[in-house]
């Protein structure tokens, strides 16, 4: 048996190709799948969520409210706003929620409608108010969102995101917190149509409370001066242009026979 020394030219045991490219492709694939899952599940949850019974909705709402609200200690203000809210609820609207007001320590001029009947009003907005009519308009506007169940639509995706990030990253992971912060801001946005519908609802409720609709326009002009951001932040702003909003509301008022009138001042112990 003869021995012929020979070496193979290439290494059959290693697949050619850059491992870096492999890595990027796999990572991209994984990200695409996770994002796809997120949107698909969000869609599915959005379909189910309107059928949620109220107490489940309230329980789901609690962690979301805790994340968003940085409670400002203004019990006097809060009580007054709550009183107004209760009045609106009993006299001028017919919604199956028990509304609670949360004042959040935030200089932005903004208000949010969170699931479970939790209305969040930022202290920046409260500071800008000059009359009770404006406050009523804000509260009625948020209640309008509830009337159209707008607040639940973002809830679906937010829930899916919380679950996915807990599974992939583990809870309390800084990356998850970082992403979720951005996501809450975008998911709590309402579309322009939703905003317009809420505006109209608010106008009707305003009329019911005071007999006229002054205060709405004044308020809208004020938030325009404010920080120029829509619900939740400067990017992804979906608020219709304020002038458009005011013009539309004027048309709406004219069509429905709502007129102007004197503005009621803020309650005495409001501005503490």
């Amino acid at each position, binding site marked *: *048996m*003869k*021995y*012929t*020394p*020979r070496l*193979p*030219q*290439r290494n*059959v*045991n290693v697949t050619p190709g850059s491992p870096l490219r492999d890595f990027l492709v796999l990572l991209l694939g994984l990200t695409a799948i996770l994002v796809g899952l997120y949107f698909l599940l969000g869609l599915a949850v959005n379909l189910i969520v309107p059928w949620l019974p109220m107490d489940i909705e309230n329980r789901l709402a609690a962690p979301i409210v805790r994340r968003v609200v940085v409670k400002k200690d203004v019990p006097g203000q809060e009580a007054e706003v709550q009183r107004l809210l209760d009045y609106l609820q009993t006299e001028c609207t017919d919604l199956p929620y028990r509304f609670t007001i949360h004042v959040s320590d935030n200089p932005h001029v903004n208000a949010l409608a969170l699931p479970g009947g939790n209305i969040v009003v930022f202290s920046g907005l409260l500071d800008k108010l000059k009359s009770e009519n404006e406050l009523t308009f804000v509260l009625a506007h948020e209640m309008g969102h509830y009337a159209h169940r707008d607040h639940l639509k973002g809830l679906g995706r937010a829930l899916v995101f919380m679950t996915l990030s807990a599974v992939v990253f583990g809870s309390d992971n800084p990356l998850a917190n970082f992403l979720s912060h951005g996501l809450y801001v975008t998911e709590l946005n309402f579309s322009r149509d939703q905003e317009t519908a809420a505006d109209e609802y608010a106008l009707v409720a305003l009329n019911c409370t005071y007999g006229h609709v002054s205060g709405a326009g004044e308020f809208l002009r004020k938030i325009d001066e404010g920080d120029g951001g829509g619900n939740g932040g400067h990017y992804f702003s979906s608020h219709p242009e304020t002038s458009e909003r005011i013009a539309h509301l004027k048309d709406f008022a004219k069509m429905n026979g709502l007129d102007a009138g004197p503005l009621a001042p803020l309650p005495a112990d409001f501005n503490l």
Partner: protein
Amino acid sequence: MILTTVETVPGKSIVEHFGLVSGSTIRAKHIGRDFMAGLKNIVGGELKGYTELLKESRNQAIERMKEQARELGANAIVNVRFSTSSVAQGAAELYAYGTAVRVN
């Protein structure tokens, strides 16, 4: 390419040899197979997914060994042996090695 696990190729004589040749492979299962295996843990039965995986692994290792032998000019591999280890969880690793020879 003839493969045997004995010293010679029965019925033929070895003319020359080229030393050791080997083929190795490592294949991972994917999440689908894992999921099915988890279910099978409840009902029992053959884990077809894993059987497939190990079969593919073995075939690839043997193919690579044959390719290396071919490159050296051999037409048979004798005294083939297998060796395996669990180098990574969830991956099937197989190493096949033998002596590349030329028979007539």
